[in-house]
């Protein structure tokens, strides 16, 4: 058991790939698997900022939305025709948003910070709502065609759900690998030091403002990639992508899974989405159940599912 655990800890990307390679066959339908992958990535990004750096953002819908709209506008309005360019546009927009909003919000800490992130995200929502010529307004951005995957020498169409799933998996796995690199680096250590005690990290001589901003931007990048993938998955970008309920969802997912753990976000995303999917069959009031479960977790299982599991299994 311990050997398995330490192997997983040192080879998280491989472990991730193994599990998610077969994941579509473990869930009721393939579209759910793709959703788990994408929202898991979203939560991964959020977790970098909250779980590892200790900054609670209540406005992460902004970067998800920027990623989605960036890719959507590039493909549907500007008609760039290339999958890679579309993704790059989404990533670029999300990173830019992260840098600008992060710069403003990080001037405050604690609760002010959280409220500011929420406010900026709402601001972005209203802007998106009103720039209807670009974003489609409340109708959403439509007409996003999914270009085939152009690799050197081969072009792979992505129009079946399974093909798209594995494409998304490749990108998400890359993101997971990137996160591992970030966390293992000295930068990653400073992040966690900041989470534990920001003043002390500062006293040790680290430029905490710069580190926090970088963490914010990385977090926005992951969230933006997730948003881009979702735009490609749905072929539309709904305006709700920018609404604070989307921010709330990623918070719930991360907490359910386990903030501050590596795989917690994916566990949380899977739990939330499967729960939502199965509950919706029985009752229209499934948000009540999810809300109650979330409250129970905050009170009694603050480490989340994965976090509690890891803690139980020993150091």
């Amino acid at each position, binding site marked *: 058991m311990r050997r398995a655990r330490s192997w997983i800890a040192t080879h998280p990307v491989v472990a991730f790939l193994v599990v998610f390679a077969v994941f579509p066959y473990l869930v009721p339908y393939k579209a759910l698997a793709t959703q788990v992958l994408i929202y898991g990535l979203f939560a991964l990004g959020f977790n970098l900022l909250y779980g590892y750096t200790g900054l609670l953002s209540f406005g992460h819908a902004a970067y998800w939305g920027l990623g989605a709209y960036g890719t959507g506008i590039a493909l549907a309005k500007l008609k760039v025709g290339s999958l890679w360019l579309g993704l790059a546009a989404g990533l670029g927009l999300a990173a830019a948003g992260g840098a600008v909003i992060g710069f*403003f919000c990080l001037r405050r800490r604690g609760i002010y910070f959280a409220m500011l992130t929420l*406010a900026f995200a709402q601001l972005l929502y209203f802007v998106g709502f009103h720039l209807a010529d670009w974003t489609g307004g409340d109708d959403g951005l439509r007409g996003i065609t999914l270009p085939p995957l152009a690799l050197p020498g081969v072009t792979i169409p992505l129009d079946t759900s399974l093909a798209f799933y594995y494409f998304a998996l490749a990108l998400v796995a890359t993101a997971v690998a990137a996160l591992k690199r970030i966390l293992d680096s000295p930068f990653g250590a400073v992040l966690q030091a900041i989470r534990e005690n920001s003043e002390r990290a500062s006293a040790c001589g680290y430029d905490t403002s710069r580190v926090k901003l970088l963490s914010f931007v990385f977090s926005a990048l992951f969230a933006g990639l997730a948003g881009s993938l979702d735009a490609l998955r749905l072929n539309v970008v709904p305006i709700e992508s920018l609404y604070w309920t989307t921010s709330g969802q990623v918070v719930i997912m991360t907490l359910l899974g386990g903030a501050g753990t590596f795989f917690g976000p994916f566990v949380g995303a899977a739990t939330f989405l499967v729960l939502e999917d199965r509950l919706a069959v029985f009752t229209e009031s499934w948000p*009540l159940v*999810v809300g109650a479960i979330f*409250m129970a977790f905050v009170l009694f299982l*603050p480490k989340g599912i994965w976090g509690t599991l890891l803690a139980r299994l020993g150091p």
Partner: protein
Amino acid sequence: MAELTLATLAAQAFTGLVLGMILVLLAIGLSLIFGLMTVVNFAHGSLYMLGAYLGFFLIGHTKSFWLALVVAPLLVGALGFGIERFLVRPLYGRSIDDPLLLTFGLSLVMVETVRLIWGKIGLTLDPPRELAGAVNLGFTYFPLYRLFVIGVTVVVLVALFVFLEKTNVGLIIRAGSRDPLMVKALGFDLGRVWLLVFGIGTALAGLAGILAGPMRGVYAEMGVTIIIESFVVVVVGGMGSLVGAIVAGIAIGEVVSLTTLFAPKFAEIMVFIVMALVLLVRPSGLFGESGLME
């Protein structure tokens, strides 16, 4: 485009005042709770909504708006006691974000519960006959009920001021906001003070709800947009500052009203722009103290 007369401007300013009053009631509750306990009550909007629904329920059973006006906030305050004692207090000592997360979950639960009990279609809450109708203010006809809302809010604010400044309990609350450790060291049971403050803050939210119901209708989502506006007011006024909550509440109300007059499309966005500007110039808000849980 209609000519912009002084009368229209004055009427607009008056409507902004009413908008502000509701925000003030909400922001004061939020600020009290935050100032003393450093807890951000995300469920504040849902408690506002509950105040309106309980008002509807009570009027249905007692046929008296006045009775409902008094009892509904008390009921919401009682629920506030429960929330503090059993949901928020266990989180004491843990991360400062935890009560925010918990109350966020609570707001989801409350909205759905209300939908289950009262249905998904909104309800109608009518002001009492005595308050229906409009009053000629000279520059415009103004609904009597809205004047009533202004009046009630002023009375409540005065009562709150008297309570905080002139009573012993008020003194403890103010001291507890400034230095909770010292107050505890002096032997006061902070737990009971928290209970009271949470109860008062939530009761104010409930009052805002039942006051707003006849103006805007009663529906499960009514707390959702107003919670964000309330947060903006508290952040602009300065978290923990009651004067700030009042000034910022009225200011934001006027901003919304006047922007609607001149540039209706920007009304929602303007609120956030004002917030961003204020925070750039005065990071702790207009009346906030820097260092207070910044």
